[in-house]
């Protein structure tokens, strides 16, 4: 099983960050490459820019711990998947940790890169109100 966590510090109070993260239906506003996200009961349906979709089950939204957990249920048939968004209070700012566990591991690198970009998108949305829709992920430059 592969596990990884990306993190970012956002210059906003943790409760403001958590309000966005906890609104599960808003994920497409800050996750580049997601064109839609809707929630019905505990099922979130993600439309992807590649023309596909992901089905996710929201496992928990814990307002006390500021933690959201979900699992991808289709169409990719993971033996195990757990996505975790954790917001930590740093006083005037907040740290967000975006973790994934998955088996098989084929999507590890793609999810790691996409969730890294997603945290940048979340930071932009919370700090400036800019959504990631139409956002193009920056390409790696050798000089960067």
């Amino acid at each position, binding site marked *: 099983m592969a596990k990884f966590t990306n993190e970012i510090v956002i210059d906003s109070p943790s409760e403001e960050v958590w309000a966005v993260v906890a609104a599960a239906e808003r994920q497409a506003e800050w996750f580049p490459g997601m064109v839609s996200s809707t929630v019905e009961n505990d099922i979130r349906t993600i439309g992807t820019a*590649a023309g*596909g979709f992901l089905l996710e089950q929201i496992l928990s939204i814990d307002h006390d711990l500021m933690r959201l957990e979900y699992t991808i249920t289709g169409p990719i048939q993971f033996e195990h998947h757990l996505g975790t968004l954790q917001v930590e209070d740093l006083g005037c700012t907040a740290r967000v940790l975006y973790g994934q566990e998955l088996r098989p591991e084929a*999507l590890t*690198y793609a999810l790691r890169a996409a969730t890294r970009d997603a945290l940048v998108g979340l930071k932009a949305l919370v700090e400036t109100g800019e959504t990631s829709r139409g956002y193009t992920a920056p*390409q790696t430059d050798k000089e960067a």
Partner: protein
Amino acid sequence: MGRRILFVTTDQQRYDALGCNGGKVARTPVVDSLAASGIRYERAHPQNVVCMPSRATMLTGQHIRNHGVWMNGVPLPADAPTVAGVLHEAGYRTGLFGKAHFEPFLDPFLRFPENRMGVSGATHDEGRPHRGFEQMEFAGHGAAGLVHYGGWLRDNHPEHMAGYFPVLDMTLEVNPEGGGDTGAPQVKHNPIPRGMYHTDWVADRAISWLDGLDGDDDWFCWLSFPDPHHPWNPPSSELHRVPWRDIDLPAGYQEDPEERERILDSKAPHWRRWYDGNLVSNYEAPSKWVPATLTADQVREVNAMAHIQNELIDEALGKVLSAIDGRGWEDDLDIIYTTDHGEFQGDYGLLFKGPYHVDSLMRLPLIWRPAPSATLIPRVVTEPVGLLDLAPTFCRIAGIEVPDWMDGVPLPGSGADDSGHERAGVITEWDSLHPNGTEVHMQSIFANQMLCTRYEAGTCHSGNEGELYDIVEDPHQQVNLWDDPARAATRTDLLEALDETLPARAEPQLAVEAAV
């Protein structure tokens, strides 16, 4: 008006796939004819044995460590200089048709320009050349994927999409399922009509682009066939070409399991571990497939399918050459034909590819038919060359100074100046880090008819292992001489030459953004 350049690549094609290289199965008269009137290289090696690093080398003329694409899934940096860019700047019209793979394929969130172009149908990156190409139309290994061919098939012939074997399974791992007559992995009978198969589509798209050029345009056209890479599913209408029951087993396959396993045991330990199903080191072979289960008939069927795909490529190339001839460009046309890396195709009881540096994966077909107007003499070149020499060769053909950032040198045979090929040897390297934690690092040098590979410490190796083969005495690399005291001096010399040739690793290492 200068010399036009048709750069033809296949994917995962063995040296012995072609008749001109001694291949006995596929009929490849078009390429054979180019070899007869041009330069045939007997020792062309890739700098890495999987697609993305190797293709990045072809495009940049750089060693792996200098362009930074150290394994599949690492995108070539957006600001990487390319030979297509150099040619475009010099006034060449530039197009690529078929498989690019300078950026990852596995991209559900559409993070990469190539995939955005493939999904939208755009043939350039928002009006700008992409990596130096003003026109790009992509194909992959079937109907799936974020490529133009998939969209074309879906829009025009959706009934044929399911005819292809799904390269990936529902977990997005390389599909271990088998099919055909023998249950061989990644084999399928594909009912798609031949004219709709991706090989012909690639040729047709290139011809369409060439048809739109002015007669006096200089152009560089990369004709990049996705075959004979797995899946092995050529149109069923073509299966009669190579009946699998009638073909001989490849010389590199040992039918006796004991003999096969004895050879594997003489190599570095990861060979046998993979064969037995005890190691997943890389994404490029199905993780749930155990090579030890491969049967002789499956080897025959995979080979037959690959050779059918080779024949279709040859015929598609012939179609493109006829179109070029019809435009009156033939006399000023240089054609270079090669592939990105090889394929086991049954050697040692293995299929696919991975961290295994032997001729199956490293000895590549390479043919250069210089423009007839250049009046070069046909010849066979035996000294080792690398794919990193292609980009400098394109520059020389175009009459452009080879940029300093290219590591390669123009291929020998280019006429006036063959300097630069005094190099110690040609090198191939491998670095990989699988999400399961498996880590492999190895480098090889081929020089003086010897192939030497050393392993660095990783999860499979202590750092003391190596392989040394005498290619003349042992053409299938079955006798590892690494620990032979009589070859100790040779081994030392080769390792010193390797150190002299190998650039330092790039820092920081570029991030892996997808499995492939």
